């Protein structure tokens, strides 16, 4: 049985960040990833927004937290950041939880740049009661992945295993003993759970208290923007609206909508979906497969998202469908009212240490520094 100072479950951004930070402190690290490569799920399949807080006009806490890390992330990982576009936020005239004035007041309170522009430049007359030029970027997950793979190559003491599913975890004195599907057994005194949508599945193996989560099977659509749209990201707030913005440095735009991006939701403690019945052992409430590679991916809701966007956007900001990406998104039930997306870092036990991380934003990785002991 091989022993490691730290074992990290999940090779997404949070997992690899934790691995690199740990190795830099001289720890021996094992990263276990059930897919065949890193960054195949939530790190890649999302809007790729480097948040500065604009998205949370009803949660000043989340906003200021994001804003604080925005600059640091943009500097540390500048090579994967696309900042060569104008990010416009607008508040819908109808059905919005926040209006233009409230959005402006909120930006002032969160101390983030917000300059009013003429909403008729982008939106059909009367659809939005305010539009604002903001400062927000998008990151390219694939460039970020290359960077991390390069960094890992040059480091000793890190072992990353792909295609390795965890079969069982048990506590043995001050160690966690992990049995893999390959029958290999490894152990550690410090286990980090950065599996995001699978966070409860790991905790369930240990019989621990689960996070109160609502699971959403989400679709991000990718589009080729018209020349007029290319230089802009457009987000309509705050309710059943949409966002169309550059997807990293790919040249494509992602199109998402609050009502049509989630295809199905599960309120069970472990993610339980009808589509799991169709795919055998690939995916179950105890082990999530990768929705993006799944044969039972839902039919695209692009026509709905596109019509919603076209209802608001001037015709010159056109786009054509290129493809869809799917992923499972866990949302803390407590954050539905204020729409906050807190980064939760829960230390379940010490000696042996078990830490779970749950975050829907990439630039709050630094929140982990405290538990990783690299402050």
């Amino acid at each position, binding site marked *: 049985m091989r022993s490691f100072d730290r074992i990290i479950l999940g090779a997404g951004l949070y997992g690899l960040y934790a691995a690199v930070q740990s190795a830099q402190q001289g720890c021996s690290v094992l990263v276990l990833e059930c897919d065949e490569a890193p960054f195949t799920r939530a790190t890649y399949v999302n809007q790729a927004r480097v948040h500065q807080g604009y998205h949370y006009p009803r949660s000043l806490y989340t906003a200021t937290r994001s804003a604080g890390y925005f600059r640091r992330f943009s500097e540390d990982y500048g090579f994967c950041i696309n900042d060569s576009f104008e990010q416009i936020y607008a508040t819908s*005239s109808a*059905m919005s939880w926040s209006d233009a004035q409230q959005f402006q007041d909120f930006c002032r309170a969160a101390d983030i740049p917000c300059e009013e522009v003429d909403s008729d430049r982008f939106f*059909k*007359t*009367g*659809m939005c009661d305010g539009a604002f030029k903001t400062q927000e970027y998008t990151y390219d997950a694939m460039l970020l992945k290359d960077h991390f793979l390069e960094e890992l190559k040059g480091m000793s003491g890190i072992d990353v295993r792909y295609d390795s599913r965890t079969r069982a975890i048990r506590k043995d004195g001050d160690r966690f003993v992990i049995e893999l599907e390959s029958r290999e057994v490894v152990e550690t005194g410090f286990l980090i759970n950065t599996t995001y949508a699978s966070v409860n599945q790991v905790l369930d193996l240990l019989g621990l208290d689960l996070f109160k989560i609502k699971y959403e099977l989400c679709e991000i659509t990718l589009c080729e923007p018209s020349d007029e749209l290319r230089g802009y990201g457009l987000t309509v707030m705050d309710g*059943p609206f949409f966002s169309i913005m550059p997807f990293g440095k790919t040249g494509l735009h992602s199109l998402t909508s609050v009502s049509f991006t989630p295809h199905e939701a599960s309120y069970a403690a472990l993610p339980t979906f009808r589509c799991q019945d169709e795919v055998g052992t690939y995916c179950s409430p105890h082990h999530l497969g990768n929705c993006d590679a799944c044969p039972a991916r839902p039919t695209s809701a692009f*026509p*709905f998202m596109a*019509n919603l966007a076209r209802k608001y956007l001037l015709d010159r900001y056109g786009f054509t469908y290129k493809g869809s990406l799917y992923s499972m998104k866990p949302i803390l039930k407590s954050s539905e009212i204020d729409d906050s997306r807190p980064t939760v870092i829960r230390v379940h036990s010490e000696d042996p240490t078990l830490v779970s991380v749950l975050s829907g934003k990439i630039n709050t990785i630094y929140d982990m520094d405290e538990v990783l002991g690299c402050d």
Partner: protein
Amino acid sequence: MTDAVQAFVSAVVYVRNDEAGIYGFLKWLGPALEERFFQVEVVCVDDASADGSADEIRRAAAELPGVTLTIIHMGYHHGREAAMRAGDDLAIGDYVFEFDRAVPEFPLSALDEAFKTMMEGYDIVGVAPRGRRRFTSKLFYKVINHSAGVANDLDTETFRILSRRALNRIQSTSQAFPYRKALYANSGLPQATVSYEICDGGGRSEKRDAEDGRYRLRIAVDALVLFTQTGYKVALGFSFFMMAVALFMIVYSFVSYFAGITVSGWMTTVLFMAFAFFGLFGILAIVLKYLQIIVDLVFKKKAYIFEGIERN
């Protein structure tokens, strides 16, 4: 119609305490729309129903996998006009069907007929039954059509289709929707009415309770006040008439005084009262004029409305 039309349609359905009928209506309408149109979205506006309407909608949604169904729950009872406005705001279709009543009282061919008419170049197509009108409905439409100066006559409609262009026009015309139909009629866009023979609605007819009756009366009065000049004209006319009467009293009191047919003090009393009433009704006329201007400012945001611009 055999092939689904390449169009994205939304159906906005008003629901208020209708647990008995809403499931059947959605199960009837949903597949009918699905087979006719490429993309279909149904928006049910649950106007604070106190019964099991919402559960019945969910039950129908679960059995209609091809139809995207959304429910808007109104925070409290808003009434049909405001509730339907919320539904229209949420709908994303290129064409929006408005079902003010969830009653399957029309033949499904009316959907085809109405859509076909729309494709002929109309932005708003109303669908109304032939014959059969309540006396009160007839009277209301007669008054409003006669005196509101609306471009298109209003009539009792079962449902209607609006183009996205029409909805955008209305959105930018008036924020407060006191009465949608008058706004539609005055939107300046081409519109038509399609009629059909009434079918029995599967034995169901629209449920009208006292609450609904009161609501309809209120909307009717509001519509008459806001969209016709009737109230304003009557009040202003009466003010001018009373001013004339006061003026006559002033003249009459002088004549009586000089003719020597008065008792002591009568002249001053009558003169004072006549002056006071003349002033009072004069002020009232001015106030009425102000009120009319305020109503115009609030409900008619745009100074003019055009149908289109043609360059030759």
